[in-house]
Each structure stands twice: as structure tokens, then as C-alpha cells.
């Protein structure tokens, strides 16, 4: 396999962090237009928590909506724009359904072309060995956390494969809906539970998934 495996990718990311070299993706700030003040405001964890507490949902831009999308990719293809925090599901007629997403935090972003290998409803979460080693909260679930409202994978999971091999990355729901629009994960793509349930109902196993993320390591040697 010509692709970079996850261990190499994480090793590269660790090296970048160790030398103070962050990826371009991590340098970018997300901004939200505040209709009340008519100003663009930085959208970070604190702002996201505050806005979600106030509105009970993510900012309008990160809610599910139909948008114009000019592409030669066939309907059913999933396009992830990690920099802008959008996931597009291509529809006929140069349109797409756009959802808001949370993506990998500094050093954990990636780009590549993969596919949906399988899906699950209320999936069990089993943290990968690297996460168990670095995160005490993950370590207690080394044997697997049963599906449910507190499970980090949320209501549905789409397991991303490269060929027949599980990449360990998933598109999944979350019990933390305020994190949509942020760089928060360990490389997985997270969505609101309502949105992942909707996406899960619309896609087929085998669907092509294109992950765009400027400055991130390539998952595979495309």
C-alpha cells in the first residue's frame, strides 16, 4: 500500500508539534457573523459553548442546508472541507446537502480519498491504542464503551476504509453538539446526532469520501 499509515501520520504530526511547526490548518481561525452586532467574531471553544448555551443549536452556517455545489462527483459522494468545517453530500443538479462538522485538532487533521466501509447505529466506541496511551479518560474504555447518549461516537458511525482496510477514522455523531465548527477531534469527523442520523439514512456503504484539509498530512499517497 502506497499510503501513509496512521502511525506514520501521527508520528509526523508529533514531530511537527515538537518543533513548534503547526500545520497551516491549525493556524486558521474560524469566524462567525454575529447578526446582532453585525460583526465577525472569532469562533473558539469559549464562544461556541456560550452561543450553544444561548441558542440550543450551532450557528446557522453549521446547520444542515441545501447549497449550490458544482462538481463532476456523482450524487452520494461525501466531500469534507476540514478547513471550513463543512461536510457536503452531493445531490443531483449541482446541489449538495451541507452539514456542519468538527474536525481534528492541531496535528490531527488529515486529507485523502477514502470510502465508507461499513456503518453502525449507536456504535460501541473502542479507543485506538495511541489514544489509550495518552488519554486517561480513553484508557478506562480500552475494552470498548457501549453505544448510548454518552458515547463519543453518538447515534451513528460511518467507518472510513482505504480499500478493504479500516483507517481508524470515522464520521460520527457526538454528545457534545457545541463542538461543531471547531478543531477538536483526534482526526475523526464529528456531526450533531440529528445530522449524522440524516446522513446515515442517505448514504450507501462504499460511498466515496474526499477529505480536503489544507496543510494537513495526506492519509494516502493519492
Amino acid at each position, binding site marked *: 500500500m502506497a499510503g501513509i499509515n496512521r502511525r506514520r501520520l501521527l508520528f509526523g504530526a508529533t514531530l511537527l508539534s515538537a518543533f513548534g511547526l503547526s500545520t497551516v490548518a491549525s493556524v486558521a481561525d474560524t469566524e462567525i457573523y454575529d447578526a446582532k452586532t453585525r460583526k465577525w467574531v472569532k469562533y473558539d471553544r469559549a464562544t461556541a459553548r456560550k452561543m450553544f448555551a444561548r441558542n440550543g443549536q450551532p450557528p446557522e452556517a453549521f446547520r444542515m*442546508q441545501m447549497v449550490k455545489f458544482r462538481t463532476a462527483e456523482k450524487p452520494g459522494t461525501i466531500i469534507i472541507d476540514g478547513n471550513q468545517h463543512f461536510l457536503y453530500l452531493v445531490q443531483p443538479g449541482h446541489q449538495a446537502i451541507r452539514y456542519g462538522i468538527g474536525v481534528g485538532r492541531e496535528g490531527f487533521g488529515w486529507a485523502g*480519498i477514502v470510502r465508507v466501509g461499513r456503518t453502525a447505529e449507536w456504535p460501541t466506541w473502542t479507543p485506538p491504542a495511541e489514544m489509550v496511551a495518552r488519554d486517561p479518560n480513553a484508557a478506562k474504555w480500552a475494552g470498548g464503551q457501549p453505544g448510548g447518549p454518552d458515547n463519543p461516537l453518538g447515534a451513528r458511525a460511518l467507518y472510513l476504509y482505504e480499500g478493504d482496510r479500516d483507517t481508524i477514522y470515522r464520521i460520527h455523531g457526538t454528545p457534545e453538539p457545541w463542538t461543531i465548527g471547531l478543531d477538536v477531534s483526534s482526526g475523526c469527523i464529528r456531526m450533531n446526532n440529528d445530522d449524522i442520523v440524516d446522513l446515515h439514512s442517505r448514504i450507501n456503504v462504499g460511498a466515496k469520501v474526499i477529505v480536503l484539509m489544507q496543510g494537513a498530512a495526506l492519509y494516502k499517497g493519492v
Partner: protein
Amino acid sequence: MPALETSIVLKALAAAALLAAAGCQSSSPEPQQMARTTLQTAPADLQLLCANAVATQTGAASDKVLPVNSRQLDATSFQVELDAAGKRHSCVVDNDGNVKSVT
């Protein structure tokens, strides 16, 4: 006549206020565009149009061409850098989805 003049002036002021308000409203982004990043990457669909153009022009398999970088060149166009099975290409595409060049 002064009353009429006052009325005209008031109407003119009201119209100006309406126009100003309309101007303010039109300067707000559409709801779907109320989020942005400081990176100013090309929209995803334009990046993929470039990927398709590179695949077509080089004969590379479409699942081997991935946009890896992009930037706004001017008000109407973007430059997209692509990886095609390890080979780098550059593409310029405009806001209307017209691919201007592939190298």
C-alpha cells in the same frame, strides 16, 4: 407651502433611511455564508473542479487526484495546488467554475 415642503423633506428622509437600512441588510452575508476562516481557501466545489480538470488533462485516475492547497488570487479567481499520485499540479479556477489553466 411650507407644510408641503416639510412633508416632502420628511418623505425624502424616510426614503433615505429605508435605503440605508436596505443597504445595511444587503451587506450582511447570507445565512449559509455566516461562517468563514482566515485561511480563505477555495470553495470545495471549485477545488474539485480543478481535480477533475487535472485528471482529464493528465489521464490520472480521478481517485488519485486530491487538492492539497488553495488560495484566492483576486476577487474572481482561486489557485489550487493538487497532488496526482505524488505529482504536483497547479490550477486556476474562477468563481463561476471555469477552469482557466492547468499546469
